[in-house]
């Protein structure tokens, strides 16, 4: 065997993985070859260094007490994930609520101030005459039905408060997140 062939066997030789015939060939070669003997010494040094790696493994006892807390932590992680999902759900719910409320408020404002808006922009802003008439007839029915105008005012104020409160809650939720 030449040096190149011996070199390919040295790692297995040091690990004791060669069959007897091959091991004998390596042994007799390194006795007469300085280069291969040097290479063998390097492999032996490497083998000794690698053999020390088992001392890097920390004792298993260090990990055992943390298993239960690790499981608890996993549960806690689940709770956090749920809370995050809820937060996004809240956002999804809050956003349309705000937009809808905004549209309702601007619609009502447009309706009540339609004369002023029409005057300002120079044309009629009513959605349709029939819708306006319907709304007016509803208002008229209410006014006729409820003898006291203050009751109607109270109902309107109540609706406004509910709308304002829900808008406020939705806004607070958005700001909190």
């Amino acid at each position: 065997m030449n040096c190149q062939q011996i070199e390919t066997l040295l790692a297995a030789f040091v690990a004791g993985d060669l069959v007897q015939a091959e091991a004998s060939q390596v042994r007799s070669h390194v006795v007469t070859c300085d280069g291969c003997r040097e290479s063998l010494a390097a492999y032996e040094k490497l083998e000794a260094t690698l053999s020390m790696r088992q001392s890097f493994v920390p004792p298993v006892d260090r990990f055992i007490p943390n298993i239960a807390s690790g499981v608890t932590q996993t549960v806690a992680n689940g709770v956090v994930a749920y809370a995050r999902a809820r937060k996004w759900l809240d956002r999804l719910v809050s956003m349309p609520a705000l937009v809808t409320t905004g549209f309702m408020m601007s619609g009502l404002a447009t309706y009540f101030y339609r004369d002023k808006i029409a005057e300002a922009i120079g044309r009629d802003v009513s959605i349709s005459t029939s819708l306006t008439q319907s709304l007016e007839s509803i208002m008229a029915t209410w006014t006729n039905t409820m003898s006291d105008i203050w009751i109607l005012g109270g109902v309107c104020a109540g609706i406004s408060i509910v709308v304002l409160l829900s808008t406020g809650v939705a806004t607070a939720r958005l700001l909190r997140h």
Partner: protein
Amino acid sequence: MQGNQKAFGELLSRYHSTAYAVVRGVLGDSDDVEDVVQLVYVKIYKGLASFRGDARLSTWIYRIARNESINAVKKRRLDTTPVEDVVLAAPSAAGPEAGLAQRELSEQVETALERLDEGQRMAIELRYMGERSYEEIAETMGIPLGTVKTYIHRGKAQLKKVLESAALKDR
């Protein structure tokens, strides 16, 4: 829970060095190794009841440890210095402080290990850090016995080459 933990502790002590070697095989000498090993044990603890025995326990643990380590690399974006850029510490000149020289050599081997292919590195870690036999490594990694030997011998030849070239550079 107490009884379970005791039985689990006994099981772990049998496979601890294997799991640790696998995590080290993927992460190298990183600060995250122990955290990932802990995660692996939590996962094993939770999954043990549903372990069906399709694979050997060592193979199952190997897969969990390897997957958790790979996830850790992805999640935490560990230091992924390209191996070409890894600079090996200069070997110390032979002197009276043999302990220091050995420690330096050990550090060089650590760095050189990171240059190996994953299969070679994993087989070497399982062999030396995990103190597993070739047969056990083959069973754990799910590869033929001959491949394990090839990985280890070629890996060591590669390590020697890297260490020699580092020594030459320093001269």
